[in-house]
């Protein structure tokens, strides 16, 4: 019983790595906000290694940018179908250009 739940947990977990090797752990469901990640992990008969290993390495995305992207995943999950006031999603001016490029790449 405990092994099954552990397997379920592991199957739900996704590890994202930044260009400098920082690891971010999040649930798969959260990452589906990104169209690119969703198509990699959720495709039928997926041959992506990332799907089998449940980890994706982004060589072009820096740690602060990837962190912000993951924050956005949670932000979107939290406020979609919500009637509460939508707060402003805070962005740092220093990373905004790279964040724009990453958002385009991740289809987010």
């Amino acid at each position, binding site marked *: 019983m405990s092994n099954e739940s552990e397997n379920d947990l592991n199957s739900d977990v996704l590890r994202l790595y930044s260009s400098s090797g920082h690891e971010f752990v999040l649930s798969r469901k959260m990452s589906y906000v990104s169209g690119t990640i969703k198509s990699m992990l959720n495709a039928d008969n997926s041959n992506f290694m990332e799907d089998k290993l449940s980890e994706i390495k982004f060589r072009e995305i820096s740690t602060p940018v990837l962190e912000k992207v993951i924050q956005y995943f949670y*932000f979107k999950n939290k406020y979609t179908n919500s*009637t*509460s006031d939508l707060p402003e999603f805070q*962005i740092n001016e220093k990373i905004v250009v*790279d964040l724009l490029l990453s958002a385009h790449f991740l289809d987010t």
Partner: protein
Amino acid sequence: MDFGLNEIPTLFDICLNYIQPRLDSIKNLSNLNDDFLVRLLEKASPQQIILTEAKIGREISAEELWKKHCFNTSFVPPDYEVEEDQTWRSLYQQLTEQYEEKRKKTGDNLKKLYSSAENQRKSKQIKVLTEVVTPPTYRSTHSVPKTSSSSHSSSSTSSPRTSSPRTSSPRVSAYAAPPRQTKSTYSKPQANQPKLMAKILKQVGKRK
């Protein structure tokens, strides 16, 4: 149907909306390709496009944006198409130069009109002088007797100035006090003058 649920913008749109009003301060714009830059500059003015190009050190291929700005000038008919050797960017520059030239000409013309109108207004203006200028040669050239009969005879003299001093400056004399010269020759009737006249008349009557 919308039941008041939040519509979450994409992260891409959030970034675009963040950068658009801060084009002057955002660095690393040169990392973006022209497609991204065109999207960022959609709401930008022509001056901002030029400034951004100067900032990133290259020309952005943004003909659609220049086309939009050309039609915004209202000098270009809606169905206008650029010629083969012409770009919308160059057309916009031409239009701007022409507009500046016209603006300068119109400004100069207006200045001329205003200055001529001002001159005309000044020429029609009434000047009120507090001090009356006396003809300088009146006394020195002619020795005019002080009696009223002599002043009448002096009007037949050759000098037009002495004969009618008012003609020399009609605007001034209209509001000016009588000239000092005429004032000095004219003497008020003495209080005892009627008596004197009566006395003379008596004497004449006696002689008769």
